[in-house]
């Protein structure tokens, strides 16, 4: 089988313009005759639903939570990149393109990454207009900070809650379309299978999580924006509900799954404290701007950090990477943390942790400035661990955070099943083998606001859609498969209490996958 990514020929700078020019258009009057299904309501799903609704399509958006505003995009802290070059430090679309591709270790498609960098500029404008309260300078202009090893300041942020504010912006745009009647929101409903008819994705089978009812939803195209599969490790920074069911069932219906082994480990998480622990809490990478990472030089040193004299501490990142020091990319920082812990130099009760020390920064800048910069993160750390990070170092350990792999899509974000489009973390498209900080939000919104509205139109205009009757054999077979899977889990079939709870199963394979 040959995979055709459908990348337009010619110079990369004009690829996206060319692609858009070559696309077929759906006339305004015909748009409302087309129905679309969007699965997921995070940055990608909500922005796609809103934009498609604005264009006049009939959109049904599904989420398993009680409200689209709960999607896990909300937890992103740090910021969103855009090649605006507002600080005049030499940033450009080309530089963002270069940084993203290089940061991903050259395992992503050039054309996709270039388009992402191009669109990044418009995303900020869109979000500002929606009322996202980005941080501002005193003069009223947008503020920027640097992030994740980039040498330019191109990250826009809203305190430590950028993801929340961007998601609320998209959610508000979505609710505006719900009011206008173009989008129907279907909350507390989970997609359990994809309906494929004559090789085209034509709908989904979904389960209402409140009353358990299975329902069939037919549409002209299906858009998956259901996020990544980080919970495959059980303990991750993903939300408890984040799951891969939508993309996995689509995979089983014939969509190809690309680069599943590309997962990202985030170096600054709060370490595990016991077996009961249900998830890992991430702390923004920005902490590494002022914190110094170290472990004791001696193996098995269990003294409290303040008792370890300066010359018995190993600032291993500064030692091994003199030019980047504590700011090496996520994968390098994570791997080194694991290495020192394997050498039995880890800290904390479990020995799985390294120190992130702010004492130098506090004595240099004063506690007030540190409090201004990281106050909310320090509070969060204290709330969870009951330790005061102003007095002693924090303990951190890497944790799975993001998955670069996902369903394979072409330049139009269409999977190998015609009519099945995949957006955001659910696809594999833009980050290669490693994602730069503050790029995930950018990709989700680029896909949802600025790519899918065009590419779906092209697909709808170029194809014919026969009326589909729910009683068709393919649909009934799909529903039966779903029902059987559910029955297999029910006590009436197997009988007797489970010897292991679902969570413990999850923990078991989680430890294996790691």
């Amino acid at each position, binding site marked *: 089988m040959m995979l055709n990514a459908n990348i337009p020929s010619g110079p990369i700078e004009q690829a996206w313009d060319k692609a858009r020019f070559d696309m077929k258009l759906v006339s305004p009057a015909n748009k409302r005759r087309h129905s679309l299904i969007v699965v997921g309501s995070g940055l990608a799903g909500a922005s796609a639903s809103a934009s498609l609704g604005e264009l006049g399509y009939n959109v049904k958006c599904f989420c398993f939570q009680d409200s689209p505003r709960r999607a896990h995009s909300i937890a992103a802290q740090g910021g969103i990149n855009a090649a605006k070059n507002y600080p005049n430090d030499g940033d450009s679309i080309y530089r963002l393109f270069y940084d993203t591709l290089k940061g991903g270790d*050259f395992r992503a498609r050039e054309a996709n990454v270039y388009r992402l960098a191009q669109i990044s500029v418009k995303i900020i404008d869109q979000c500002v207009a929606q009322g996202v309260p980005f941080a501002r300078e005193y003069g009223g202009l947008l503020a920027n900070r640097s992030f994740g090893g980039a040498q330019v300041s191109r990250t826009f942020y809203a305190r430590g809650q950028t993801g929340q504010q961007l998601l609320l912006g998209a959610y508000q745009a979505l609710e505006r379309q719900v009011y206008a009647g173009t989008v129907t929101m279907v909350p507390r409903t989970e997609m359990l299978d994809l309906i494929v008819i004559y090789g085209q994705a034509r709908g989904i089978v979904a389960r209402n999580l409140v009353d358990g009812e299975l329902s069939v939803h037919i549409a002209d195209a299906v858009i998956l924006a259901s996020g990544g599969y980080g919970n495959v490790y059980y303990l991750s920074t993903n939300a408890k509900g984040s799951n891969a069911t939508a993309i996995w069932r689509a*995979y089983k219906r014939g969509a190809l799954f690309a680069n599943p082994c590309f997962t990202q480990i985030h170096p600054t998480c709060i370490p595990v404290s016991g077996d009961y622990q249900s998830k890992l809490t991430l702390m923004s990478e920005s902490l590494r701007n002022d914190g110094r990472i170290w472990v004791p030089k001696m193996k098995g040193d269990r003294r409290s950090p303040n008792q370890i004299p300066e010359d018995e501490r190993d600032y291993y990142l500064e030692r091994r990477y*003199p030019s980047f020091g504590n700011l090496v990319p996520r994968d390098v920082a994570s791997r080194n943390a694991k290495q020192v812990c394997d050498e039995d130099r880890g800290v904390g009760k479990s020995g799985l942790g390294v120190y992130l020390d702010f004492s130098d920064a506090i004595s240099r800048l004063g506690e007030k400035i540190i409090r201004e910069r990281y106050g909310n993160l320090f509070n969060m750390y204290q709330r969870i661990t009951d330790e005061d990070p102003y007095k002693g170092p924090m303990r951190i350990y890497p944790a799975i955070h993001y998955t670069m792999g996902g369903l394979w899509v072409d330049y139009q974000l269409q999977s190998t099943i015609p009519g099945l489009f995949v957006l955001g973390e659910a696809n594999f498209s833009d980050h290669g*083998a490693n994602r730069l900080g503050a790029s995930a939000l950018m990709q989700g919104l680029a896909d949802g606001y600025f790519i899918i509205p065009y590419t779906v139109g092209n697909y709808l205009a170029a194809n014919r859609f026969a009326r589909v009757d729910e009683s068709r054999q393919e649909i009934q077979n799909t529903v039966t498969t779903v029902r059987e899977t559910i029955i297999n889990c029910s006590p009436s079939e*197997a009988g007797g209490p*489970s010897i292991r709870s*679902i969570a413990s*199963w999850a923990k078991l*394979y989680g430890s294996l*996958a790691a």
Partner: protein
Amino acid sequence: MTRTAQGLDTAVGEIRALREEFWQNVTVPGSGDDLNQNLEKAGRVADFFELAELMCIDARERNESCGGHFREESQTAEGEALRDDEHYSYVAAWGYRGTGEPPELTKELLEFHNLHPSQRSYK
């Protein structure tokens, strides 16, 4: 955070065994006709079992270190990640061939016309 061929092979076997044990023993209290959070979880866990296997197969196949994927067999003398552009500059796209069947690999070769792949270094 680091992977070895041998470790991945073992993991695939263990995941398969665990998945079988799961399907033989899984039971969820309550019914499927009302709100049942464990039933939701059970379905998701079942999918993760299969996905975990595919992840290991993909990691086993990609015999290089790149980005978040670090294979101990492929590292520099200083213990840094070593990419293999000659053999692995592609997207590995896996296709489903049925339960228990090994998935089918299709490659999309990556071409770089504008940037030349270089090794990352943070020394």
